[in-house]
C-alpha cells in the first residue's frame, strides 16, 4: 500500500486531455468495431503505461460480462482508475463526442438520399452482410456449449419464443435466465 502511494506521489496525475485524446485515437483506429480492444490495449498498456497487462485483462473480462457496449466499458474503467469520475467523463467523451458528431452528420446526410436506387442497393448489401456477421457471432458464442444439452435447449427455446412466438425479449429473459442458472447449478451439483 505504501509502495503504491509512493509510486502515485512520484507520478503526476494523468492529464484529462491525455485521456480524452487517447480514447479518441482508440475510436478512430478501431474502424469496424472489433479492433477497438486491440487498440485500447496498445495505447493504454504499451504506449502510455497507464495500466498493467493484467489489469487490462481484468477490465476486458469485466466488460465482456457486463451489459452495454463493451469498449465504452473499457474507457469507463481506465478513466476511473486514472482520475476517478472526472477521468471517466474525459475518457468516454474522448471516445464518443467527436466520432459521434461526425458519424451522425454523415449518416444523416446519406439517409436523406436513402431512396435513390444506388444508395438503396449499397445499404441493402451492407445490412445483409452485417446481419450475417451477427448470426455468425451468435453461433460462435454457442459453439463451446454445443455438447451440453441443457444449454442448447435453452438457446433453442429463447430463439423460438422470440422469433416464432414473438414474445418480448424482456419477458423471455426474465423467465429463462433464472431457470437456466438453476438448471446449471443442479447439473454442477450432480457432477461434483
Amino acid at each position, binding site marked *: 500500500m505504501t509502495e*503504491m*502511494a509512493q509510486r*502515485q506521489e512520484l507520478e503526476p*496525475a494523468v492529464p484529462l486531455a491525455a485521456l480524452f485524446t487517447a480514447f479518441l485515437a482508440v*475510436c*478512430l483506429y*478501431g*474502424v*469496424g*468495431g472489433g479492433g477497438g480492444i486491440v487498440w485500447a490495449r496498445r495505447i493504454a498498456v504499451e504506449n502510455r503505461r497507464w495500466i498493467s497487462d493484467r489489469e487490462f485483462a*481484468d*477490465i476486458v473480462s*469485466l466488460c*465482456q*460480462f*457486463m*451489459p*452495454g*457496449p*463493451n*469498449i*465504452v*466499458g473499457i474507457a*469507463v*474503467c481506465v478513466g*476511473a*482508475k*486514472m*482520475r*476517478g*469520475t472526472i477521468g*471517466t467523463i474525459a475518457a468516454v467523451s474522448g*471516445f*464518443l463526442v467527436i*466520432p*459521434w458528431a*461526425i*458519424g*451522425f452528420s*454523415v*449518416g*444523416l446526410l*446519406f*439517409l436523406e438520399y*436513402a431512396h435513390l436506387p444506388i444508395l*438503396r442497393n*449499397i*445499404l*441493402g*448489401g*451492407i*445490412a445483409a452482410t*452485417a446481419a450475417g456477421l*451477427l448470426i455468425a457471432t451468435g453461433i460462435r*458464442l454457442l459453439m463451446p456449449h454445443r455438447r451440453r444439452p441443457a444449454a442448447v435447449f435453452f438457446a433453442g427455446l429463447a430463439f423460438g419464443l*422470440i422469433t416464432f412466438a414473438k414474445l*418480448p*425479449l*424482456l419477458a423471455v*429473459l426474465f423467465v429463462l435466465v433464472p431457470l437456466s442458472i438453476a438448471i446449471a447449478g443442479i447439473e454442477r451439483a450432480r457432477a461434483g
Partner: protein
Amino acid sequence: MTGPSAPLALTIHLALLSSISFGGFPTVLPDVRNFVVATHGWMTDQDFANIFAMAQSIPGPNMILMMSFVGWKVWGFPGAVASAFATFGPLARFTLPPTGSGTGSATRHGGRSCVWAWFRL
C-alpha cells in the same frame, strides 16, 4: 414526431435494453426493431435496415450511432442525444467507482475499483 412522450418512452426502453444487453448491444436489436417498427410504427422495416447498414459502415461507436438515428427519426436532435445517452448511460453507471466524487485524487482509485463497483451491485 409527436409530443415528448414518444421520445421519453423510447429513451426508457433503450436504457432498459442496454442494462440487459449482455454480450453487446446487438443482442437486443430485434427488440429495438419490434419496439420502433411493430409496436409504435415510428419507422418502416426499410428505414430500420437502412439505419442499421449506415451505422455499421461508419467507424466509431456503431450501436450508439444507430440508436441516435432511431432517436432522430422519433424526435429530431434531442431524441438522438437522449437515445445515445440511453445506450451507454446504464453501463457507465454500473461501472463507476462508488467513491468517485470527482475530486480526482488518484490514490483513492487504486487497484480494481471498477470491478468492486460491479460486485457491490
